[in-house]
């Protein structure tokens, strides 16, 4: 176990705790950058898909994990980001402008929707945001002249200063673009966490009454969290549109919202790692099931069997298992395993047991 001897306040402010940690992340980044040479086109596509889900996951994580506000409507922001990005490009804006604008539009939508929405708590907030997702689905159909309704839209090739990027034509360029966006979002996320804004998110999550007494404007902080969250999710939506190539109102349905929420729970609430672990599960599960099925049919020697709904069932099973045995998600389990080896042989079983919390003042809402 490494003990950091702190000699300046910067030790608490820095992005990485110590040099070795920075080194590991640098190594991970290098590995991610050289991935196109290690993977074939198919698996590179899967990796790209995973990163896009991770971006969306980070977007939702800011809201759910950091600020403690549930949302079952994040598919709406995926849709807003995706449609805004593609429509702006169809009207002549270059990708380098349309893409951030798509995120900004989704972010502003989230920010303003939050003012009525964030007055709700817990399950009511979940229902309210769920309604939002349904509403956007219908709006896309109604606004047919603009969005082409159920027919859907084609995402144009991405053109960055004359360089054409197409998922099928040059998947490595598309992968690097997604990786670049991912790294930027991770940096922004980390910066928010270590600054007063991130602390006010945590304050709102843990005790609204106390946050208010500390001078935190709770309504504005929630709206900011919604805005940042929706903005990041919107960027993920824009990338999803380019990845899918064609999309309509059905692409961003409620199932996607729920999958997104389950994803960050499985990954581990409240951490950036959780978004990535969760994304890996969501993006790779269909492939794992397909491989598993091939193996099984190989043993049986029969022709391929297809079991409808198998993916959802396995996903649901994994979720239930996590909630029962590891509420802190994959990242929580990872921390425990790491601590076990760091402290070996002194790790105790109840080291991470939740402490009983004490009486709370009656909340004034």
């Amino acid at each position, binding site marked *: 176990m490494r003990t950091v001897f702190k000699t300046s306040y910067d030790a*608490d*402010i820095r992005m990485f705790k110590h040099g070795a940690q920075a080194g590991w992340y640098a190594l991970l980044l290098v590995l991610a950058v050289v991935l196109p040479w290690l993977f074939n086109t198919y698996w590179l596509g899967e990796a790209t898909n995973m990163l896009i889900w991770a971006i969306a996951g980070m977007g939702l994580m800011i809201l759910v994990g950091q600020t403690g506000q549930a949302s079952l409507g994040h598919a709406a922001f995926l849709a807003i980001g995706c449609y805004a990005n593609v429509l702006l490009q169809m009207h002549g804006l270059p990708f380098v402008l349309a893409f951030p604008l798509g995120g900004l539009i989704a972010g502003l939508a989230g920010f303003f929707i939050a003012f009525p929405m964030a007055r709700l708590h817990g399950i009511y907030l979940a229902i309210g945001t769920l309604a939002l997702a349904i509403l956007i689905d219908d709006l896309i159909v109604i606004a047919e002249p603009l969005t082409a309704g159920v027919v859907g839209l084609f995402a144009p090739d991405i053109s960055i200063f004359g360089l054409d990027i197409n998922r099928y034509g040059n998947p490595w360029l598309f992968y690097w673009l997604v990786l670049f966006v991912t790294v930027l979002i991770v940096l922004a996320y980390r*910066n928010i966490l270590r*600054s007063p804004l991130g602390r006010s998110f945590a304050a709102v999550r843990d005790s609204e009454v106390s946050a208010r*007494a500390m*001078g935190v404007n709770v309504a504005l902080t929630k709206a900011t969290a919604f805005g940042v969250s929706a903005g990041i999710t919107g960027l993920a939506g824009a990338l999803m549109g380019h990845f899918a190539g064609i999309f309509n109102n059905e692409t961003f349905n409620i199932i996607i919202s729920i999958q997104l929420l389950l994803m960050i729970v499985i990954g581990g609430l409240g951490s950036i790692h959780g978004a990535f672990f969760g994304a890996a599960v969501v993006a790779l599960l269909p492939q794992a099931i397909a491989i598993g099925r091939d193996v099984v049919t190989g043993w049986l020697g029969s022709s391929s069997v297809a079991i409808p709904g198998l993916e959802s069932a396995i996903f649901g099973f994994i979720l239930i298992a996590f909630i029962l045995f590891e509420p802190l998600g994959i990242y929580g389990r990872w921390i425990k395993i790491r601590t076990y080896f760091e402290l070996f042989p002194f790790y105790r079983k109840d080291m991470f047991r939740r402490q009983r919390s*004490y*009486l709370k003042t009656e909340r*004034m809402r």
Partner: protein
Amino acid sequence: MTALLELENVTLRFGGVTAVNKVSFSVEEGEVFALVGPNGAGKSTVFNLVSRFYDPAEGDIRFAGESILKRQPHEMAGLGIARTFQNIELFDHATVLQNLLVGRHRHRRGNLLTETLFTPFVRREERRHREAVEKVIDFLDLQPYREKYIAGLPYGVRKVVEMGRALAIEPRLLLLDEPASGLSVEETQDVAFWIEDIKTQMGITVLMVEHDMHLVASVSDRVLALADGKMLALGTPKEVQTHPKVVEAYIGSTDPMAGAKVRAAV
């Protein structure tokens, strides 16, 4: 001496219950002012009125000469009013350091953009906040707990962290809601010293609710006794403790024959 906080005929009703009934008092700059009284007397309600969590039905509350009734609860910290909570309202899933840093929120000068980019300005601000918080840590001897999560801390330490978080605001007026409840004799002694130092060294005015009369008597300059939302007595700790109405509120009538009279009447 000038009045820092003034309550004028403040009344608050919850349905048919008058929780606070025409309470008027003023807290002078630089004093320790204590509110005492039996359970349900309205002490904590007065706190929640001053923090703007409740709106009074009648009366006015002024801070530094200006009415605060038009302001939002979250603006109170900005004015320089900090408070603690009777049952501890810390941010459980954050470290002691992060909790104290939230107290610095009123001094935040960055915005969403600069903080997302973590500009050199934000970094300098963070250092400044960190330094201010370190002074509080030093003052309250919280060094061993800096990196600890609140969820794993013992009750006594949480109490101290709450006081520290309020001090990190750098307030002009500190509202302490039962700072010694649930603490051991030694810990209560520490609290007494800290309140003394908060007053004399930091120059912060203290308004506190407390049941421990030893603590009240040893640190407060003036005491207001409340019962059933009404003011009973106001004065030095000694005056209030011996005031017949206060004695009656706590232990019943002082008339030694009261019991006999009641029996006779029945």
